[in-house]
């Protein structure tokens, strides 16, 4: 996929998404698929809320001592025979990975699901340099053959329906008999598995992300449900782990706490099907494993977030609960957000990574209903952080002129009660008079955004404050 940014066109993206019938059909399953399962998993664990506190505290502690844990991780990973690389930005990370692949003469690489790989546009870079990347997570495989980006951080192809997948498989797997039956999801799965098996065996390098990097042992951890990650990282000559700085966690004990909230928040599972710990390359006594083990740790602007208000965002463990519970995400899906990270977490992260000028729509496209914060396993105050971006937008005069003017007029009046009260009284009297017969308006000047889709109730008449004052005078 390419990392072409369409976040500035969020409104247009949203309109198209709302008119896209197959997408709407797929999105209808997001809420029912995730919300009840998370709630049931949380309900079953009496200490779930306490675990969320502890998860928050572990991440806060790590972020406060990130330099220390980074050094410890590097030391331990090297002691286990691994290589650790630090990349300041996306370009550096891409080139480090390309360099490793070239040194090994790699022609194909298999990939486990990695959002950081999407963030740095790794696949395009490898392809442009003659190396074929193969996504092995089923969802990622689907979007790769469609040339799309992920629409969800843990369910990248959630925007697709079974019929679309069948059509894509018939198009791409042209060597298979056209009369084969693909009507059942299990048949699609079996076909993908067969195709991917060949790739696993042929790959020279396996690239995965990491859910956690453990400082005390130099271990990288991936959490998956398909087992593709294990094949990706054990079969090829080399395993490259690509992770951002906030994936660090001090100890295995800490990880065990975070794992208890991760899967429950994400899919409602107590644990994911596979939780795989990798420390260094294959040792002499190991029956299998990669000959080389590399960890590429990416900053890409995150150390800048450490110092400010957005630091809390770096607690994120990428469970996807915020988007699973977001009414805006449910309405428009992930692609409308226009870059790699959608939903509430994307609305906070995207402006930090691509700039508030390009990302300004995202933190605005929230009703601040607060459901994301309510379910976040590490208690990130997502609405507050979105509001932070709105403040930056206001400070830098980035909002549309009409909105800014409207806000300025309203603010001028609201700060001057002596003017506000007679003005609102006059306006309401007029509206009430005009709207008297119907009780509402189907069209109103300056309120097109409202009346395009809804009627606007006519005010009752005189303002409460004026009526109250009149009553008091009578008494």
């Amino acid at each position, binding site marked *: 996929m390419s990392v072409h940014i369409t976040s500035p066109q969020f*409104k247009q993206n*949203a*309109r198209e998404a*709302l008119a896209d019938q197959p997408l709407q059909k797929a999105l209808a399953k997001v809420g029912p698929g995730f919300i009840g399962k998370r709630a049931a998993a949380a309900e079953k664990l009496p200490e779930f809320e306490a675990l969320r506190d502890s998860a928050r505290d572990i991440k806060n502690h790590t972020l406060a001592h990130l330099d220390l844990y980074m050094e410890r991780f590097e030391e331990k990973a090297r002691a286990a025979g691994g290589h650790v690389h630090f990349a300041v930005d996306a370009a550096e990370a891409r080139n480090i990975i390309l360099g490793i692949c070239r040194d090994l003469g790699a022609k194909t690489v298999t990939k486990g699901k990695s959002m950081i790989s999407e963030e740095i546009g790794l696949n395009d870079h490898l392809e442009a340099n003659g190396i074929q990347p193969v996504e092995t997570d089923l969802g990622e495989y689907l979007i790769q053959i469609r040339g799309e980006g992920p629409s969800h951080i843990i369910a990248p192809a959630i925007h697709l329906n079974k019929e679309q997948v069948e059509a894509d498989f018939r198009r791409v797997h042209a060597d298979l008999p056209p009369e084969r039956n693909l009507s059942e999801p299990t048949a699609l799965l079996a076909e993908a598995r067969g195709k991917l098996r060949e790739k696993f065996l042929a790959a020279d390098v396996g690239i995965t992300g990491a859910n956690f990097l453990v400082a005390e042992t130099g271990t990288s951890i991936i959490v998956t449900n398909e087992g593709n990650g294990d094949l990706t990282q054990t079969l090829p000559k080399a395993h490259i782990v690509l992770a951002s700085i906030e994936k660090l966690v001090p100890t295995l004990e800490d990880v065990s706490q975070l794992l208890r909230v991760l899967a429950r928040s994400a899919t409602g599972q107590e644990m994911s099907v596979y939780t795989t710990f990798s420390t260094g390359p294959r040792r002499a006594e190991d029956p299998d494993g990669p000959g080389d083990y590399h960890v590429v740790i990416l900053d890409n602007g995150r150390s800048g977030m450490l110092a400010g208000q957005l630091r809390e965002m770096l607690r994120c463990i990428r469970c996807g609960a915020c988007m699973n519970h977001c*009414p*805006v995400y*449910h*309405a*428009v899906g992930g692609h409308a957000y226009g870059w790699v990270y959608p939903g509430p977490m994307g609305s906070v992260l995207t402006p930090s990574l691509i700039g508030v000028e390009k990302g300004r729509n995202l933190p*605005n*496209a*929230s*009703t*601040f*209903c*607060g*459901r994301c*914060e*309510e379910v976040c396993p590490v208690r990130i105050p997502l609405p*507050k952080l979105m*509001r932070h*971006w*709105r*403040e930056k*937008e*206001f400070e830098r005069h980035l*909002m549309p002129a009409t*909105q800014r003017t409207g*806000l300025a007029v*309203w*603010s001028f*009046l*609201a*700060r001057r*009660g002596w003017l506000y*009260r007679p003005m*609102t009284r006059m306006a*309401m009297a007029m509206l009430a008079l005009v709207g*008297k*017969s119907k*009780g*509402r308006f189907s069209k109103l000047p300056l*309120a097109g*955004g*409202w009346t*395009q*889709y*809804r*009627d*606007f*109730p*006519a*005010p*009752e*008449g005189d*303002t*409460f*404050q004026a*009526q*109250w004052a009149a009553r008091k005078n009578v008494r």
Partner: protein
Amino acid sequence: MAPNEQRPVSVGLFVTCLVDTQRPSVGFAAVRLLEAAGCTVSVPRQTCCGQPAFNSGDRTTTRALAEQMIAAFETFDYVVAPSGSCAGMIRTHYPELFVGEPDWMPRVERFCAKVHELVSFLADVRGVTHVTAAYDGTVTYHDSCSGLRELGIQAQPRRLLASVEGLTVAEMPDSDVCCGFGGTFCVKYPDVSNAIVEKKAANILASGADTLLAGDLGCLMNMAGKLQREGRTIRVRHVAEVLAGIGDTPPIGQPKPQSVEGRKS
């Protein structure tokens, strides 16, 4: 009605911009409920709590309005608003505006502690367990987001509604999911807002209720406007109107019957 009443407590009614301008009936309903709960109600001169500026990123205006609000209301025992959104703005967000200002902070915190949303104030602070009101109908209650998530308002309105004579509550699916209003969100992203309120309208209708109630006028106007655009006849009211027994005013977005009679004569 108010068992823990000792002396009359003074309540400053923060009526909120929307109730002040759009639907004063809700303000009078609030006065009636507060007086019945043993409160002496005053209405100091007021404008807005500053939430529209706060959520638009304009901290300077927000701060000025917060100071204005505190000065107008801090002498009362309690400050009550018929809105979870406005009360939540004050209680949970005002302190953020004064961080690192020891001259202000104690005063702001003292003030915020006495700010309440109307229905939760009646139930939780005044110990009101039932109201003297009748309503002939089946109602469904929408949990407005700020009231629910910032102030924990969920059981209180349902408990008081259960005491209204003749009233039945029929829950809708996903009553705790946003209606798509979101303040300026609904006009900044009208297409997305519409998609959300469409789902809400379908859930409201699925309840089979003849009346929709909620505790925030912004959400109510959004839902009423959508239901009426769809041609639905369900009545929409602020929960305070029903609890105060003034359910004879026209529902939100409906004309006054008198105006029709007026034209005839």
